[in-house]
């Protein structure tokens, strides 16, 4: 993978925008709840991340850190 992301669950509000805008379909909304009761975003198992950082660009909560080669 060219990149990977870390989603801080406690900042996530389950708005689903990262999942909507990710060009690789690498992010989905999971069934896991955080302490505030939101269904948090998570990376797809066996998925591809290009490190484009569009998810971090749209994430209103600044919950995502992005790493790239």
């Amino acid at each position, binding site marked *: 993978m060219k990149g990977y992301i870390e989603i801080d669950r406690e*900042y996530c*509000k389950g708005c689903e925008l990262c999942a909507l805008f990710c060009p690789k379909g690498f992010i989905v909304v999971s069934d896991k709840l955080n302490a505030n009761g939101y269904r948090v975003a998570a990376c797809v198992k066996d998925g591809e991340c290009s490190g484009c950082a569009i998810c971090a660009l749209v994430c209103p909560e*600044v919950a995502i850190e992005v790493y790239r080669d």
Partner: protein
Amino acid sequence: MKKIYARPSSLKKAVFHYCPGCGHSVVHRIIAELIDEMNLRDVAVGIPPPGCAVFTYNYLDIDMAESAHGRGAAVATGLKRASPETFVFTYQGDGDLAAIGTAETIHAANRGENITAIFINNAVYGMTGGQMAPTTLSGQKTTTTPLGRDDRLEGYPLKMSEILALVRGSAYIERVAVSSPSNIKKAKKAIHKAFQAQLDGVGFSMVEILSPCPTNWKMSPAEAWKWIDDVMVKEFPLGVILDRTGVEDAG
């Protein structure tokens, strides 16, 4: 691999109190990024409004001072005149800037005050529960226009960017939206230009930001972001409304 994106240092480590998908969160972040990139933390004073964004000071790690509703431009004027080396910006909603604060905003622009206004236009009064704003669209249902905004009785959506562009002291006015990755990038560029206009001392600058309010629009975040691109921009077209920054005598 190296980290290519992380929380800007001017953004405090706090979970935003804003609703999921709210535009304030995105705008706070890009302002914080610009404060970092343009080295403004030491000299900036931000003036948040009454409204959902009254708590901006819980997030932006700069000096901040609340203003009375609508008076941000006047407070910014007094501060900037008393301390011209301070970087002063207001952060105002559509009621704050375009209803109760119309006079103060127009006259601050008219005097060419070297301040920047960040104008969050979400076509509704958010904090108070979704009443009509000056920028509410024709036919839009809000809690004080339950049958939809009737232009003949309730007036038309007010286009503050266009109005302020007519004022001689205005130096830079752009309308953007935080509704998609490309629009967010453009929004950040616009705020950068507006901030630069203040640093260059050319006059009043404003960025009007079409911003989603999923809760009061009664939409999901994704629907709200889409509504801006599909519907709102037709009434409030995006783009540079005025750019006098290259001109010598900008009022």
